[in-house]
């Protein structure tokens, strides 16, 4: 046996288990989702009827689905934008400024990320409590009674209340990621810039931002995936999609259709849309943010 051949066999044997597992647990189920979306099926018995793209036609006219889709898109945009701004701000303050107890703050910011979503739901339902909640109490203390709201009851703002909880939860994680990017930028760049008379903001926009750009791009994909997933968990635990569908996101709608409404095939059709949407969105975002990677 030639050396090359035996090496190839070795490589093939090494990767076969991984490929098998990947195929079994990722490719096959994904394929099944696509296949099931073409059936009318309750989900339990053997009575499946093939109905082609009918589920998708119904989906196109389903106002509740469209509402949940809008909610999801709104959440993805809001959470990504707010978290990026806040996380980058704190990351640059904590790495570049001489702040008291940097490590302490880093841990404090990170804590929400290790909490389970159910606990976050509990915390925020206490924060948003109309009567004794933190938010309304603080507004009352500051004599801003006119700003007090039914944070989880007013259908116009409940989706923003949800976004608030998601941002709070996400900041720490992304802040740590940006901090690690910033920490690897050589200090000499900033020294040179300040000798040239560049202010803090100029330093940030001309040095920090371009050099962590790649880091930032990667996290954009994370925002899309994690918001889709976490919003489902948070909605399930905190608002149940209510009041009257105002906080329904597409995964929670998919769940209620696949199970509560016994239309498993239709639920899978929603799954196909969500799958395609998140894939395309991630690809588009990655494409339009592509810049030449700066070396340092």
């Amino acid at each position, binding site marked *: 046996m030639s050396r090359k051949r035996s090496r190839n066999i*070795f490589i093939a044997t090494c990767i076969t288990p991984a490929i098998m597992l990947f195929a079994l647990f990722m490719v096959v189920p994904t394929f099944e989702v696509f296949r099931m979306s073409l059936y009318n099926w309750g989900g*339990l018995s053997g009575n499946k009827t093939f109905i082609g793209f009918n589920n998708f036609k119904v989906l196109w006219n389903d106002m509740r689905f469209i509402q949940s889709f809008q909610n999801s898109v709104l959440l993805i945009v809001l959470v990504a934008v707010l978290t990026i701004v806040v996380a980058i701000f704190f990351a640059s303050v904590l790495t570049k400024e001489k702040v008291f107890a940097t490590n302490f703050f880093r841990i404090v910011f990170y804590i929400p990320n290790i909490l389970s979503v159910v606990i976050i739901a509990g915390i925020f339902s206490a924060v948003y409590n109309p009567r004794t909640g933190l938010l309304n109490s603080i507004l009352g203390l500051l004599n801003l009674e006119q700003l007090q709201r039914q944070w989880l*009851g*007013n259908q116009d703002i409940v989706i923003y209340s949800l976004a608030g909880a998601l941002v709070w939860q996400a900041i720490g994680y992304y802040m740590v990621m940006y901090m690690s990017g910033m920490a690897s930028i050589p200090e000499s760049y900033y020294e040179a810039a300040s000798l040239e008379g560049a202010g803090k903001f100029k330093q940030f926009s001309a040095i920090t931002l371009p050099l962590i750009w790649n880091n930032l791009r990667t996290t954009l994909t994370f925002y899309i995936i994690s918001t889709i997933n976490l919003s489902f968990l948070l909605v399930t*635990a905190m608002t149940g999609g209510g009041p*009257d569908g105002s906080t329904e996101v597409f995964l929670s709608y998919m769940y209620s259709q696949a199970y*509560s*409404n016994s239309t498993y*095939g239709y639920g899978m059709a929603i799954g196909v849309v969500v799958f395609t949407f998140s894939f395309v969105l991630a690809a588009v975002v990655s494409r339009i943010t592509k810049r030449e990677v700066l070396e340092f």
Partner: protein
Amino acid sequence: MKMKHVFLAMMLMLLVVLAACGGGDTEETDTGEDTTGNDTEETTDDSPSEPQTLHVAALESAYGVDVWEKIIAAYEEAHGNVTIDLTIERNIEEVMRPNMQAGEYPDVFLLATDREEALTETMIKENALASLEDMLTMNVFGEQVTVEDKLLDGFTDTLATNPYADGETYLAPMFYSPTGLFYNANLLEEYGWDAPTTWDEMFELGEKALAEDIYLFTYPVAGYFDTLLRSMLYASGDVDLFNAAMTYEEGVWESAEGRRVLETIEKLADYTHPDTVANANPNDFVRNQQLVLDNEAIFMPNGTWVVGEMAEAPRVDGFEWGMMPVPAFEEGGTRYAFTFFEQVWVPSQAENVEGGKEFISFLYSDQAAEIFLEAGAAQPIEGIVNMMDDEQAFFYSIYSNDVLPAMGTFASTTPVPGVSIGDELYVKIDSVMSGRVTVDEWVNSLEQANDSLRPAMN
């Protein structure tokens, strides 16, 4: 070469792990005693001399696990020839669904409709239940009376037990519980207010209460309107309107009687505690129930379980639970209190269908009823109220000459994607309360939903 050995060993380990995972699909069961019974040994022969194994699945509800273990012990002792394998979990749907999808069905399943995961509804919609007609004519296990005769009247005439509206029973009624409007009896007494019997009196009381800074009404979550609305349908247009609504008849919500139910709900919005909608979610609904305990709201739709649910909650001094049927629309009109009950059923693909039916008949025996009653669950059988203690009997004696039980649920349909009558009728109430949806819009969306569901009825 050494590397190859290490690699081989690792592959072997991986295989072992995979094999172990693959073999691990015997479901976790919480058995009363250690069962040696193994599903594959089960025989379909149900002659009494052959030992048989029965697989029972049940939802672990507020009544606890103990009660089922006692029932099973009693049945095994009485029968002598059966071993029962019990699976009881709080998330029973999640535990059983994969097994059922793989074709392993329990022989008896205690799981009501109207649950989030809707496993029972799915079984109904897929025509996967065994008919229980012959069980009704069987003698109650160990007694000389047929199941049919022993059950309270009306319990097997509803769409909740005969889902296809053809008179055939597929789900047996279990654990009935009257629902109604719950309140603090002491509060009404303190102010000298009478419990209203008509909606006009109800709204008068609402005005009086508002003057005292008390709101007339609150609800835990919009889903609790199911019992209230169905009682109102009975009160507004009798059984005809109710059945028309439950079978998605055209124009039922546009009719004067149907409309007045929805209009009453809309009017109720003016008297509903302002925090209600904000708390009407799975996380915070107890806060709405607390409003009643704190004298901030008077009435809420609920069932007898709320007494146990709020047992540990703080309350105003002198608080005393009261329950009244839903007000009538006219003076002297009949009032209704919806009777909520759970269901037990046999999957048609179960291995031991006959054994399952026999077990269900035992659940209506006096012996079983007493065991259930100890845990607070009342079986819908003749003479059950006599077995109760005073507190229990108070709630169950709500029915009288002018207060009738309302029972039943929506007719089953084949799955219709994107249309849920529960969403349109109950969940929408959150929007009606906030004024976002008018009665006209509500009627329209209900009629539209009915148009899609009517042709899909089984």
